[in-house]
């Protein structure tokens, strides 16, 4: 059924359709609307057989999900930013214990400086925790990916993060097609756990593993992620067959086949990128785009096949490894090792900085001309940076950088673009 609704409400509706048994979460912007909606539904008795557990922190939220999943319950939680970092230890444990929990990440920057707006720093900080990470391009895809996520997680016995851009998707009010309960039930069978804590049949999980076996256990976790490279597209294909639309999978090309320049990006920014691609195509420029849906496991072979025909690749990313450069770029370069393709990085949208068509057009034009630098910070205010560097040179006790920059640029949220 077509509905006009907020992204968070669409995700809550998808979770409800997946018949979870335990939901535990701690509210944090911009994830809050999702868990509020689910809390209301559980309280109203609309999710029979589901318990909503209030917890005192994100660490507890994921720990409860771990406990619930270990008893064979379909468990769900959601978080953002500092919340994800606060649960970090449990994030690794959930993957190491092979528990198929599904967690939404309403992607948000990490402090300090405190910033509630969108970028990908939070889920990137957990990229090596052993979870599958899928990125939604639209609210429709966010909805669909959550239904697919339980299938993927339970088939592999591996937790899945569905990453959606905070505010840009979580708070966007747009059209979604909400599937019926019958279709979701047919697509997502009852959870058959690989391991169950059951007093009638006692066992221990969470064994201590010494040097004699740790490598093998870790290697098997790697193998499981590699198997996900087959499961993710298979689940997406089955989803498309049943629901009549394409969501998820490893990656999607946009006017990519004959492109000389390809833009690689994760999440909602792909929509704006596609607008710019159309604009440049109309001007005769051979540019295209690749939207990466699966970031973990990283689809090396599929990405290489998609990018190899191009001469230049621009990795547009909403995260930064300070002192190193682009995070997604490292994976792209690894996938492209030995290929005759020039890979450049554009860091954009940090802490919610708007990524406009005009700014993208400028860097893409440069990329197509072969003059884009290896690492570019989109719309960086060089004057502000220079002034701050000068100030640091002039005095020892400079105080915090954040406050000094803020005094030059105005209060948070005061700009339109």
């Amino acid at each position, binding site marked *: 059924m077509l509905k006009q609704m907020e992204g968070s409400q669409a995700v809550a509706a998808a979770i409800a359709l997946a018949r979870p048994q335990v939901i535990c979460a701690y509210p944090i912007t911009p994830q809050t609307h999702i868990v509020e909606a689910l809390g209301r539904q559980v309280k109203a008795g609309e999710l029979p057989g589901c318990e909503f557990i209030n917890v005192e922190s994100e660490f507890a939220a994921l720990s409860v999900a771990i406990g619930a999943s270990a008893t064979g319950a379909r468990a769900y939680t959601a978080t953002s930013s500092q919340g994800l970092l606060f649960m970090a230890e449990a994030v690794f444990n959930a993957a190491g214990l092979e528990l198929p929990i599904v967690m939404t990440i309403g992607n948000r920057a990490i402090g300090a400086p405190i910033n509630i707006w*969108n970028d990908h720093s939070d889920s990137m900080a957990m990229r090596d925790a052993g979870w599958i990470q899928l990125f939604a391009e639209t609210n429709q895809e966010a909805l669909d990916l959550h239904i697919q996520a339980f299938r993927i997680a339970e088939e592999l016995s591996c937790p899945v993060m569905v990453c959606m851009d905070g505010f840009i998707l979580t708070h966007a009010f*747009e*059209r979604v097609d909400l599937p019926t309960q019958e279709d979701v039930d047919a697509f997502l069978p009852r959870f058959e756990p690989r391991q169950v804590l059951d007093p009638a049949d006692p066992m221990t999980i969470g064994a201590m593993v010494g040097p004699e076996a740790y490598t093998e256990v870790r290697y098997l976790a790697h193998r499981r992620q590699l198997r996900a490279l087959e499961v993710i597209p298979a689940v997406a294909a089955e989803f498309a067959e049943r629901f009549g639309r394409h969501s998820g999978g490893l990656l999607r090309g946009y006017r990519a086949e004959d492109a000389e320049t390809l833009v690689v990006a994760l999440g909602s920014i792909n929509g704006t990128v596609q*607008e710019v691609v159309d604009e440049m195509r109309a001007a005769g420029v051979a540019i295209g785009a690749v939207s990466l849906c699966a970031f973990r496991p990283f689809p090396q072979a599929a990405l290489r096949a998609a990018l190899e025909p191009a001469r230049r690749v621009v990795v547009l990313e909403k995260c930064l490894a300070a002192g190193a450069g682009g995070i997604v770029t490292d994976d792209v370069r690894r996938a492209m090792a030995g290929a005759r393709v020039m890979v450049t990085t554009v860091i954009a949208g940090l802490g919610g900085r*708007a990524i*406009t068509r005009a700014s993208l057009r400028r860097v893409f034009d440069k990329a197509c001309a072969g003059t884009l630098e290896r690492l570019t910070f989109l719309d960086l205010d060089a004057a502000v940076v220079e002034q701050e560097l000068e100030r640091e040179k002039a005095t020892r006790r400079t105080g915090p950088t954040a406050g000094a920059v803020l005094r030059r640029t105005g209060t948070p*949220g005061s700009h*339109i*673009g």
Partner: protein
Amino acid sequence: MFQVRIHGRGGQGVVSGAEMLAHAAFAEGRFAQAFPSFGSERMGAPVMSFCRIDDREIRLREPVMAPDALIIQDPTLLHQVDLFQGLTADGYVLINSSRSLDELGLGELVRRLRPERLRAVPATELAREHVGRPLPNAALLGGFAALTRQVQLDSVIAAIRARFPEKVAATNVAAASAAFAAVATAEERAYA
């Protein structure tokens, strides 16, 4: 694509105004996208929301930089925020005020834009009268429908009904209808 930017203050319904407008367009089978300017959600702080309406799927995620229409929920923002930034030359402006555009000091703007596309509507007064609270957003949507003809009044009414419980919806529908009538009449005068 038709792009709208709504300016107001936290608590005035800036976000729900954009969402209801998107809902109205959706009710007409069109594609619509509404989103807030993210963040400063403090009561009374300047806030913005955006709405795009199109006949095809909307992929663009940038803020509305060049609006086709502006809805200004609070005229005290006129001297605090660059409200008209990026406004297209044939754009629409709907201001919540019981004062005339000249009294608001917008004579210059009137000369720069198409005068029949600029309107002040006393949405707060209409809301006080019909809703009993100074919440102008539903009334402004009625005025917006009359001014721009981008959505029908019936669709705005459907969006209001989808948003609020029956009793509250009825009072907001009355406010929206009154604003529609006020602006439509003024518009007819301009064309006469």
